[in-house]
């Protein structure tokens, strides 16, 4: 961004706030909570109130983690789930955005589709996931679909809201400047809807992991959801915990990735006058 010196002087206080983010002490408070949980866990495990297959000590989980990393099982199942999640996200988000745009622009299509959408949205994915597995097999396809369906609805709703909320005066301005339909979309509707769209994407990123795991729970040959089922049946509780933590990390990483995109794309929102 090219800016001259007067502006740099003028805006420096604001920029400092943005780049530094949260004050350093607050950053470590969250970490403290994690440490506390680990300590409590270790204490409960050491007291031997429960058999170790119910509450294994943190050390046993770490040991298991190293084992499954070394023999490649963790990566096999993680990559399977990750591919399903990314595929489901791509499919669900694009379908949600495209259909959302059409609905936002067309009252008749909204009237036509809204009963179906409302019915589908209020049905839990877990309920109809078995159907998808029956129709699309036990491979990754059915999981991509459960994931896509979970992601589809928040994306659809947010797109409709985002596009409908395009400010009317800006629409008039674009029309008065002879904007084409494509220009209206790329220069006005998409940027105006972007904050709401990215919010939907953040929700979707978290939901996508749930969607894929639901599919894997029903019937699968690989994936972290499958690994949880398998190790639970073998009373391998440390492996269950490893798989759960890996899923949590995956969801968190996806969320952070979208947050990062959001901060970059919506940098203008941070830059407002404060006087």
């Amino acid at each position: 961004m090219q800016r001259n010196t007067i502006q740099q002087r003028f805006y420096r206080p604001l920029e400092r706030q943005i780049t530094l983010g949260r004050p350093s002490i607050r950053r470590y408070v969250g970490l403290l909570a994690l440490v506390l949980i680990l300590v409590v866990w270790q204490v409960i495990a050491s007291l031997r109130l429960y058999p170790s297959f119910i509450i294994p000590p943190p050390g046993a989980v770490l040991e298991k983690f190293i084992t499954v990393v070394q023999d490649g099982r963790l990566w096999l199942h993680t990559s399977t789930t990750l591919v399903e999640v990314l595929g489901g996200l791509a499919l669900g988000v694009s379908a949600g955005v495209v259909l959302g745009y059409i609905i936002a622009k067309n009252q008749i299509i909204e009237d036509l589709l809204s009963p179906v959408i409302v019915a589908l949205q209020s049905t839990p994915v877990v309920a109809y996931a078995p159907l998808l597995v029956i129709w699309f097999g036990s491979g990754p396809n059915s999981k991509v679909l459960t994931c896509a369906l979970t992601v589809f609805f928040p994306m659809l709703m947010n797109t409709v809201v985002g596009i409908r909320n395009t400010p009317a005066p800006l629409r008039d301005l674009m029309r008065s400047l002879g904007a084409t339909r494509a220009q209206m979309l790329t220069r006005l509707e998409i940027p105006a809807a972007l904050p709401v769209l990215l919010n939907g994407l953040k929700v979707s990123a978290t939901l996508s992991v749930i969607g894929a795991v639901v599919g894997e729970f029903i019937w699968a040959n690989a994936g972290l959801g499958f690994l949880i089922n398998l190790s639970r049946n073998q009373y391998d509780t440390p492996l269950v915990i490893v798989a759960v933590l890996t899923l949590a990390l995956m969801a968190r990483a996806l969320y952070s990735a979208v947050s990062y995109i959001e901060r970059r794309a919506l940098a203008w929102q941070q830059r407002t006058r404060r006087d």
Partner: protein
Amino acid sequence: MPASISVQGVSVEFRAPDGGPLPALGPVTFGLDAGSLVCLVGPSGCGKSTLIRVIAGLQTPDQGKVCLDGEPVTKPSRRVGLMFQDANLMPWRTVIDNIALPLELAGVPAAERREIAMKLLPGLGLADFAGAYPGELSGGMAQRAALGRVLIQRPDALLLDEPFGALDAMTREQVSSDLLALWAQERPTILLVTHDIHEAVRLGDRVLVMSPRPGRIVADIAVPLPRPRRVSDTYQAEFGAIAQAIRQAIENS
């Protein structure tokens, strides 16, 4: 080339809450000579903004038509620039990219349109704010950026709907003087809606007075004062007499 505008028997109806027709405007008939600056005053809700939208081609009148250089207006034209009470900038675009928007939509390459926009900034008092976002600007600065965006079009006609309405008195005089200076250079035909009688007299060649809803033109008052007119001229006797005539026309309407 400045455009002449003629408004012929234009009327607009809205739908009342009970479903019946609600006359909002007109019928209105008047003409603007090419290169003239005409002000339009009237009580709020008299259909001034609707009239601007019709002339701009954003709204089809229920009766009558608008002609631009004798050609009927059926859709918005790039020859006509529009400015509203709100600066109406895109908050996700920097000042320079907001000003360059009309050129961008017309297909001018990025480097070229930025260069043209950069040249406008000093005249608008925005030289140091090319990379600022609208959220960082004061009301007056935002409105000057909006003025820049309409000027970069090199419009043949300018329709200004209370463009200074949201500004404080000092800023308002400043920005309206900027507008006068720019008009003196390029001479687009200007129709300026305002609710400030003194502003109308200071800026206009003519002042049109509208009645309450459904708005009609009830007076067409010439302002034969020499230009350039300064803000201090508004205290002179001839000036006051014209303002007085306009005030009377509004009250009688």
